């Protein structure tokens, strides 16, 4: 019995409890029949029903989804382009600087990103609303996409693109017909990551939004200041599910592409062996 000991079991339980107990409580109370959040009064799904009647929340959900969709698509396109250039361009002057500049926003405090974007939007006189949140989310999500995609591109066999050129493709066709299909799993998992990041962002969205657009996280945050309601619990539960599904799908996709990659590499070594 080497694998199981009381010490291991206890630390495992404690660790996971620490991570997930708050969320479990939230999910449980979202099915509470009572209006009082902390008093259990039996199982009920009525708060989910009420949520669907709440225009405010539905509007916010619609804004959030639109923002997440457009910003993640934009971030995927830009992030993939950035990754391709950085991995492919070989050594050029200032390459280190460029890649550093792409990854820097990853570690930049969100408050600063949000504030600087706000100043920019005010500076160029852009009306704040859905559009500005989309721009802001694209900015920070694109770094994540670029990290995911470039880690795949690093191990991409460049001779495949050369073969495509050799067979008469223009460089763009070679990218579209050969590179993109092969790195597609990484691009999709980058997109999913961008989507979920946008869904749950509060700080940057609050900085860059205007009166016309309220996203769900903003809505929840302001509602909670007036007291936690079971409706909020229900809403949060739904968001947890969406994010969980997104993250799991992204990780499955990238794992699958890693497996496929390994298989291709094996094929390549067999070829020369």
């Amino acid at each position, binding site marked *: 019995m080497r694998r199981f000991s009381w010490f291991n079991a206890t630390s495992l339980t404690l660790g996971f409890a620490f991570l997930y107990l708050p969320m479990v409580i939230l999910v449980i109370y979202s099915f509470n029949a009572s209006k009082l959040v902390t008093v259990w009064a039996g199982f009920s799904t009525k708060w989910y029903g009420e949520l669907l009647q709440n225009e405010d929340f539905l509007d916010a959900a619609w804004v959030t989804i639109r923002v997440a969709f457009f910003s993640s698509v934009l971030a995927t396109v830009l992030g993939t382009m950035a990754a391709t250039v950085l991995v492919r361009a070989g050594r050029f002057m200032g390459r280190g600087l460029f890649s550093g500049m792409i990854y820097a926003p990853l570690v930049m405090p969100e408050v600063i990103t949000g504030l600087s974007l706000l100043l920019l939007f005010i500076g160029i006189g852009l009306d704040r609303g859905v559009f500005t949140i989309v721009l802001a989310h694209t900015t920070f999500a694109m770094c994540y996409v670029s990290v995911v995609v470039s880690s795949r591109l690093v191990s991409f066999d460049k001779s495949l693109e*050369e*073969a495509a*050129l050799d*067979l*008469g493709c223009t460089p763009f066709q070679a990218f579209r017909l050969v590179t993109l299909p092969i790195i597609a799993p990484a691009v999709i998992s980058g997109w999913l990551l961008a989507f979920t990041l946008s869904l749950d962002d509060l700080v940057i969205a609050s900085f860059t939004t205007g009166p016309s657009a309220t996203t769900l996280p903003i809505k929840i945050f302001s509602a909670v200041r007036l007291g936690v309601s079971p409706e909020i619990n229900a809403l949060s539960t739904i968001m947890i599910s969406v994010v969980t599904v997104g993250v799991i799908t992204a990780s499955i996709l990238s794992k699958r592409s890693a497996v496929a990659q390994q298989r*291709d590499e094996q094929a390549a070594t067999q*070829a020369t062996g």
Partner: protein
Amino acid sequence: MNQKVFAPWDDPNQKPLIQFQNVTKKFGTFTAIDDLSLDIYEREFFALLGPSGCGKTTMMRMLAGFETPTSGTIRLSGQDLGQTAPNKRAVNMMFQSYALFPHLSVWENIAFGLKRESTDKDAIAARVEEMLRLTRLGKFAKRKPHQISGGQRQRVALARSLAKSPKLLLLDEPLGALDKKLREETQFELMDIQEKTGTTFVIVTHDQEEAMTVASRVAVMDEGRLVQVATPADIYEAPNSVYVADFIGDVNIIEGNATPNGDRVRIDWAEGQPEIWGTAQKPVASGERISFAIRPEKVTISKEKPEDRRNLLEGEVIDIAYLGNISTFHVKVGNGQIIKAQSANTRRLANRDITWEDRVWLTFTETAGVLLEG
């Protein structure tokens, strides 16, 4: 019938298809191709031979357009290729690593190049079928590259590069992963294709037998330079250096001091050993240090001492390599040097009378070997 020998390189009126003019390629400070000039003619089957890392693939990549020369020019049909993009060159390349598209089936891999220039579905399908038949891949058309064997992958790569019937086809070790029989068949297939289509082939190979079989001319390279460019027969029979003689086939190298005597040259090569007589291709200075190269199959071995022969060496058999059709005897002569002699096993048990530790006599004619500098 007066059939002309195919030798455009001897004809001053012929225009070369490919011209390398003082091409140098450097990677950083490393010189991969060193001031190389070379003409390759239309309809040639040109083989590049040389040890690993001597720059064969680099030459191919410059022809295909993936590397640009650091200096010098490459011309195709007289036109400077210069900055011409790879997709604008009538050149196709079969990659050493195959570079098959992993997300496409065998069929789609072969059709890939055809689809770029034509939208005629039937014509493409017909051409792909033809290629599949040629490379015997019909059964695997629907599979992905990772679902077929290494040799099959190699054939897909070959079919894909052949499909567009390019003016110039570059083959980087095209047959390395095939078994001997399939390789020989494919070699003849390639020669057949070449005959039919008039495509010019440049082929890289590590297999000198293959180069001998398929090539109209062979270039032996060393560290980015051409050591000798000649027909396979010339490379074999008249190598221009010890390097080439040693690289192509088996050879005995005997070093000694030369003394010219008419059109013959006497070589004193070891104290107390009878001198060797060879034939000079070029004038040799008296006392010059030279190497005498002789192929094992040109050395005759016998147990009885032949009468009245020059070039007669006595020695002891120390090893016998039986290769089925021939046997190679390793004979230690007086000064300790090992000389290899080959004899064909025409009759069963023919040479069984010569065995280990036998005293034997080695002879060869005065024209059998070549004299090389150094």
